[in-house]
């Protein structure tokens, strides 16, 4: 179990204030709340994309608040996926490995096979369907075996049939890889089928943040 402590971030409408947030290891924790309640700000702070001071999060023996974003070894799938449009599927998935100077790409290729995107390896993201793009984003997020995975509304842009399939696939992959995950979703079905722990957030505060 990793614990986020004393996280405070000033926002224009309200302040994000998290005294303690317990994140069980190798499990999926879901964070639910209305739009603008601070969910994405929390993820961005944990990723190191927002400036907050005085907080702590010890993960695998490392004090994450002291580590620069690029060395935190975290994976993320944003709502808009943010695939690099000028890179092929393969280049997108291998990008984190390239950044780490890792020569062994076998795990990434295996993952692409598993997620059913290896046939599109030479395609650009714009040539893929919504579901395919979503799987590429997931492959990229997992290709370097991150210590923690963030999923910010990962299925919101998919139709209901594709969403169902993607959800099943994600569940299998997360169970196999046993990766600690924080999921943000509006969809009750996402939360019910994927998460083992559920917290709710409102106006920047999480009242019950222990499992």
């Amino acid at each position, binding site marked *: 179990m990793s614990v986020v402590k004393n996280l405070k971030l000033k926002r224009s409408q309200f302040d994000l204030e998290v005294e303690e947030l317990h994140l069980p290891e190798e499990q999926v924790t879901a964070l639910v709340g209305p739009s603008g309640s601070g969910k994405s700000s929390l993820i961005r702070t944990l990723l190191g*994309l927002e400036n907050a001071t005085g907080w702590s999060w010890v993960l695998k023996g490392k004090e994450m608040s002291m580590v620069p974003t690029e060395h935190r070894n975290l994976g993320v799938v944003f709502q808009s996926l943010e695939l690099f*449009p000028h890179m092929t599927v393969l280049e997108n998935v291998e990008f984190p490995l390239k*950044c780490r100077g890792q020569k062994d790409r076998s795990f990434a290729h295996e993952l692409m096979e598993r997620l059913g995107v290896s046939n599109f390896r030479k395609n650009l993201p714009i040539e893929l369907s919504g579901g395919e793009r979503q799987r590429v984003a997931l492959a990229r997020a997992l290709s370097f075996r991150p210590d923690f995975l963030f999923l910010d509304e990962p299925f919101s842009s998919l139709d209901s049939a594709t969403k169902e399939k993607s959800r099943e696939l994600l569940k299998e992959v997360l169970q196999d890889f046993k990766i600690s995950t924080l999921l943000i979703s509006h969809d009750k079905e996402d939360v019910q089928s994927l998460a083992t722990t559920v917290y709710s957030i409102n106006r920047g505060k999480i009242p019950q943040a222990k499992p």
Partner: protein
Amino acid sequence: MSLFFQKGFSSLLVLLLLSPYVLALVQAPKGDLNLEGRWMWPLWMGARQAALSAVLALVVGGILFLSLRACSSYKSFRWVRSLLLWPNLIPPLFVILSVMSLSQWLGWSHQGLMWVILTHALMNGGLVALAVFAHDQNQVQKLSEVARVYGASVPRRFFDIWLPQMKSVLIPNFVLVFAICLTSFSIPLVLGGGSLTSLEVHIFQLIRTEGAWSLALFYSVIQTLFVLVLSLTLWKLKGEDTFSESYIPPSRPLPAVFLGVSILPILVLSGFWFLSVAKDFTILFYDPAFFDFLQSKDFLESVIHSSLIFILVFWIQTFLSMGVIWGGRTGFTEGFLKGYVSPSVAVLGFSLSLLPGEGELWAVLKTSLCFSFLTFPLLFKWKNLSRWKGLSHQVTVAKVMGAGGGTRFWDVLWPQMREGIFQTSLIAALWSLGDFAVSSFFFSGSKTVALMVVDLLNKYRLEWASLISFALFAVGLLLFFVFQKGLESVRR
């Protein structure tokens, strides 16, 4: 019946804007087209100047972009944006004076290709910076953040994400600045000296010194076609909207010290002139010859002519805009305005000067018309076209509800568009105050304030020229602010 008038009016406007081409074609047979061995040379020299200016503008734009990334609030963004767009809004005369003051301060000659390129780059660098910033904000910033999460270092983020993503902005902006600099007239005319730095200046010299209309028209057609191709390329490439109001404060702005970069263009293109004005003011205050000059009949005449041109340009621009809007948004009018490229300044100027009508009042009228033809399509596209398009649904609703053409115009379109129309008309009128290129075709001698300033510069009276221009500039600025306040009170 109403539809008939509307269509007729649109066609009339199109004919009006096309008339310079017709006039130029009428003049062309007066000289034989004599293409000598080095006829490509002026094209090459003009293209070289435009390409070098565009490359330097991209570099300057890249540096200026840092000041936008240092903004931490919408307020500071608006300030920096105004500073960056400033050089595009002031008439070239003032820019030329500042560059001349800078070169005098450095002890260098103010003429040559280097000054033309530097001035063009500083004038257009702000446009590039704003387009780069808009794309960075809309797309690249998020991709860069994701790359950072995945472990990409700063150089990797720059070379693997930022630069490939920015290609789609840098290429259209290169094309845009290239087109602007290729057709540039006033700046190469004065700062280029006798050297061939712009095709437009070459066309001007061909007509003025050799009367070679056919050759001038030949180059003008090539230039127009070239710019048309560049416009179509730009339309295909679809760059970012430089004038976009949207702004998302960056989560990690650059240190505030980078805000200082934004004053670079203003410093070179206005600052040195202001400094020289401050110095000259103390000297000229005790110079009776200068005050005698200000009270002379010639000077008074030039002030009257400039004021008349200012008023006429304002109203011609306003009526042209009203006419286009009243004519209704048809695919033809819109497509025409989007693709319209004014013929060369020189060809247009000389063509209109050959129309019947002698005397100074005719010169005032022709200058105002010529200036309006040259600036109207650009200003209308910049400020009014998208607003006009945005109102098309309201017009349809009004039409369905039974509103006639007049009601749709006066009750729906005009109240929502008049502010933008008056603003663009005022900008054109202010530009005309500092214009010396267009008016030189119609007036013999220094009969407007701007022409008088250029005449003083040619007589090496930089300090007199500088002070008179400053007064002109101050009047223009005052008019702009009074007008803005007036518009605000009307809005309230």
